[in-house]
């Protein structure tokens, strides 16, 4: 048994770590109805009354998408440093670590999805809005490199406000670093499935969120480069209601499919099966292709 898994256990239930009320019910911000916590979990964190999508933590995502006890985390110990000496950044990092009970805004590792070996990353909006600094860039880069070396597909779940301001140009250039690693993985024939969740914006939208072979999104997720308020201000007009919503972005041609939470695991499993190396498929079909 991998000892690390023992230590990870406490973190596998992040929603109870003071982030959701300890009471046995959750009050929906959409419709105001109360739902028992156990039911919310069963329903994939979607309100059973009004269908509102609740924010999901990265670790919960990985649990939801992967086969039981198949996840092994990579690079959990990497923590950000305040390289530029940016005021208040150290305190912010500390607060983010306490609030999220995670070391950084992305969790990476290997797992199985419906029996398929994958590299997986999931971003966490509870850690500084899922912003990308050097550690987020490094972890995702290492994951793509590992996947290329081991000829594995990558499944990624994005949620991010963009590059992390407190690390200046170091964070902006993580977009370049990750993009190069994604490209190498792709050139090696690797499959990359990305699932865009609410919100995926800024530097993450303008890099690895938009570099998947297959781009999936959650219903209603905000996906876009510029912040809507910035655009509204510069245009001096209200934006269309569906602007930067996954459904609209799909209609514009930038998303392959919108997949509800309860179907995500099956859909990703099916796509992985379709991309199995021919040799593996051969065996399955008795040598007939």
């Amino acid at each position, binding site marked *: 048994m991998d000892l690390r898994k023992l230590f990870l256990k406490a973190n596998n239930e992040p929603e109870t770590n003071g982030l959701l009320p300890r009471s046995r019910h959750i009050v929906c911000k959409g419709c105001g109805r109360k739902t028992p916590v156990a039911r919310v979990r069963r329903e994939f964190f979607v309100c059973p009354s009004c269908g509102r999508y609740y924010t999901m933590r990265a670790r919960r995502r990985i649990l939801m998408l992967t086969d039981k006890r198949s996840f092994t985390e990579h690079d959990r110990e990497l923590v950000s440093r305040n390289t530029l000496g940016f005021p208040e950044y150290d305190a912010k990092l500390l607060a983010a670590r306490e609030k999220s009970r995670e070391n950084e805004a992305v969790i990476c590792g290997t797992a199985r999805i419906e029996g398929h070996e994958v590299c997986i990353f999931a971003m966490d909006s509870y850690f500084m809005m899922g912003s990308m600094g050097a550690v987020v860039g490094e972890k995702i*880069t290492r994951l793509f490199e590992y996947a290329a070396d081991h000829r594995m597909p990558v499944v990624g779940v994005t949620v991010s406000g963009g590059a992390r*301001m407190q*690390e200046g140009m170091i964070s902006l250039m993580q977009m370049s670093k990750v993009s190069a690693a994604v490209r190498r993985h792709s050139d090696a024939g690797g499959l990359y499935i990305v699932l865009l969740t609410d919100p995926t914006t800024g530097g993450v939208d303008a890099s690895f969120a938009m570099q998947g072979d297959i781009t999936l999104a959650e219903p209603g997720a905000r996906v876009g*480069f510029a912040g809507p308020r910035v655009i509204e201000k510069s245009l001096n007009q209200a*934006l269309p209601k569906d602007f930067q919503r996954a459904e609209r972005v799909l209609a514009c041609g930038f998303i392959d499919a919108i997949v509800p939470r309860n179907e995500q695991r099956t859909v990703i499993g099916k796509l992985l099966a379709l991309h199995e190396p021919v040799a593996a498929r051969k065996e399955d079909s008795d040598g007939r292709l």
Partner: protein
Amino acid sequence: MEDYDIVCGARSDGRLTACDYITRMIPDFFELHGDRLYGDDRAVVAGVGTLKGMPVTVIGIEKGKTTEERIVHNFGSAHPEGYRKALRLMKQAEKFRRPVLCLVDTAGAFCGIDAEEHGQGRAIADSLAEMSALKTPVVSVILGEGGSGGALALSHADRIFMIEDAYFSVVSPESCANILWKDTARAAEAAEMLCLTAPKLQKLGLIDRVCPKNAPERLAADIAGELTVLSAMSDEALLEARYRRFRRIG
């Protein structure tokens, strides 16, 4: 000089724009238009010519000088079509084994409904990924403003130069001050913290050379020198070195 003065200076009138540098460095420049997909974004001025006797593809983000020009060039803020034009011409350069020179001067990629719906994020993401695999040498120069992702999109190069009074930043100092303190008046403080000047970025190892201002002749010589070195490398060595260049950041 205070860092914020550099930012204001980089935005001010009377600076040499991308077209000024192109005219002075590439006298036989021939402009090529259009992304072959949707349109021709004039914020990006691109074409072919010879730099110190070397055929190159040059891609510049142009702000314009007169009001009329500025409107034509959309004040130097490119739409996705501009990045796609740039990418088309970079792929063409690769085909004909011509080095690529990018001249960057932009407050940022354009923010608007059309830009978003034509895939601004995707256009930048494509530029980054494709440039990382481009089998020809690339040098990028930040001439004035290096505004966030819109500037980064044309900076995935083997060498990044900056003019001594240019800036390159993850976010504008005003936005940074607004996010931190809800007070854009504190932009000068923010500028100091963001480490956005050429000497600071060189010290961090993020850019490769600081070039004197108002010296296109000297810049042309420096670029030609680098391109000669880079052109002597094999494709594999060039791409590996480019990968390492960004891999070590952070």
